[in-house]
């Protein structure tokens, strides 16, 4: 049990009468990369929002890092060690790379409340080290995010996540808007994370990518987990059958 990073039991979310998520039981072990798949509106993002505290769940329990947790907001979840790359990136366009990496957790030289003096040199060097570690390629750290391509932006977002994530990384469709080369770069970063033994939840629609990168695939359909399969026990057609609903059941697979 001790190697389980994240566990949810009967996780449920209703928006009024809409059952967006119903009774989701989920487990993630140390160093494991799990993909969450499913059609639009199947409950993938809702599931992630409950874990990261962006929304408050209607029912169910969440354990993270051995403790039962009730995050009041995404900041609490982040402090506990869950880092999320959001679909909408969450970068400040007019700031450079180090500022974005350290946004909201700036290193300061002197603490003077809001007027604390920033330790710019430290943050710059730490950013360089973080980019090297995640193998992220950014031509110029002084450039603002506005002047970067979609792929570079995504890489900064991921580098930011990977730099500070102590225990769990969640990526919500990290390559949805990227070109072929940029997608490859992001996938390489994910492989680097795997090699570093960092657990990851990847939400993706890309079957090839999922089979390339993860150990286990969880399929959501209409707010329920309908499949939980090890990569080697399944194939693309099987997963598609679960996603579209032509195949059901077997949700409780011993992972």
């Amino acid at each position: 049990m001790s190697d389980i990073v994240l566990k949810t039991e009967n996780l449920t979310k209703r928006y009024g009468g809409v059952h967006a998520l119903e009774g989701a039981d989920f487990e993630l072990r140390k160093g494991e990369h799990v993909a969450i798949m499913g059609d639009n509106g199947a409950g993938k993002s809702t599931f992630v929002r409950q874990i990261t505290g962006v929304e408050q769940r209607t029912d169910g329990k969440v354990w993270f890092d051995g403790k039962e947790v009730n995050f009041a907001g995404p900041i609490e979840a982040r402090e506990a060690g869950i880092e999320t790359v959001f679909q909408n990136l969450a970068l400040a366009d007019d700031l450079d790379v180090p500022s974005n990496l350290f946004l909201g957790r700036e290193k300061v030289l002197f603490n003077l409340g809001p007027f604390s003096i920033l330790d710019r040199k430290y943050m710059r060097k730490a950013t360089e080290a973080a980019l090297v570690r995640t193998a992220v390629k950014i031509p110029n750290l002084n450039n603002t995010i506005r002047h970067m391509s979609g792929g570079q932006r995504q890489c900064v977002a991921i580098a930011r996540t990977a730099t500070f994530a102590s225990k769990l990384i969640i990526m919500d469709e990290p390559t949805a808007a990227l070109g072929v080369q940029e997608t490859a770069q992001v996938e390489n970063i994910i492989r680097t994370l795997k090699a570093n033994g960092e657990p990851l939840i990847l939400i993706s629609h890309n079957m090839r990518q999922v089979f390339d990168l993860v150990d286990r695939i969880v399929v959501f359909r209409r707010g329920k987990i309908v499949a939980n399969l090890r990569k080697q026990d399944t194939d693309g057609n099987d997963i598609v059958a679960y996603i579209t609903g032509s195949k059901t059941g077997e949700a409780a697979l011993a992972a």
Partner: protein
Amino acid sequence: MNAIRATCVHLDAFRKSVPVFGPMRPEEKNLAQTSHGVGGLSYDAKKRAWPAEFNVFLALIILVGAFELIGRVFLGDSFLFNTRDNVDAIFNEARLQIIILQVSIVGIIAIGVTQVIITGGIDLSSGSIVGATAMIAMSFAQVATVNGNPNPKAMFLAQGWTDLPVIVPLIVAIGCGLLAGLTNGLLIAYTRIPPFIATLGMMVTARGIAKWWSKGQPISFPTDSFAAIGKGLMPVIIFISLAILFQLILSYTKYGKHCYAIGSNEDAARMSGINVKNHKILVYAIAGILASLAAVVLCSKNLTAQAGMGVMYELDAIAMAVIGGVSLSGGRGSIIGTVIGSLIFGVIISGFTFLRLDAYYQEMVKGVIIVGAVVLDQWRQRQRAIGA
């Protein structure tokens, strides 16, 4: 290029001192020490962002040059340089002083407005805050007797008190500005009404307060110590000191970083753990305080306070910021830019006086320059986006 290379070499030593990142793996060492930039792509020094302030400064020089040229050709006089034989100076110092003196007071307001605009907001109330603060502060800065008679306006001295020390009107003024700014900030942060509406409400309300306090009469006769605040070049000194202070704060503190972060992506700032509400309240409070300081300087300089003081100052301040390259959509701009923007204002006013042209033309040209500055800025942003 060399700087990057040097930092890469030192990276290993650095990382040993930072436990988060752990020791460097061998393949990383190769990556870091190749002759490329961070992570591997080549580092192009030419891609370094061209500071927007430089363009504004260039515009200022061109403007001064134009006035100089027109002056030489049509008037046979110099705009910038000293032409009088009996004065030993290179520049026409009186003109230089006037240029900056006449924009100093609105410039102080513009420092606060710049910060508000960088966070993606707008402050329409600063001119009215100037009016209200000037009236109220002046009441606390009255001399007890005028020509041997008791001063009827010295309402707080009716019991035969002596003049209040200058710190009292100063604290009262800052209190007024803080109150107005906090109200703006709280409204914007907690009721979520647009800053335009919240500060429009404050604009009307504060003007009302100014008129109510004045009972339709100006207040004059400040104490000597109060009058000293705005004497001579003091407004310029106060303006430039505050500009330097707030430029340093914007560049080097958490507060400054968060201003830009909130202005460029408020959701991202919130998700990154920045307390956006508190930050907005702080920004509007600072803008309010700066407006009240401008009021103190203004009524001290004019030796009188009237309810109509500061009308349209808010728009002049916004215009200075916009000309100085502060983006109304938030996230971009600097105090330096705003100061240069204010100098452009000053040069236009002085230049038209120098050319003996009607004041009406000034406003026409000012309007054209405001629109032109924004059009140019957007065009430049688009060019840059295409280039990147």
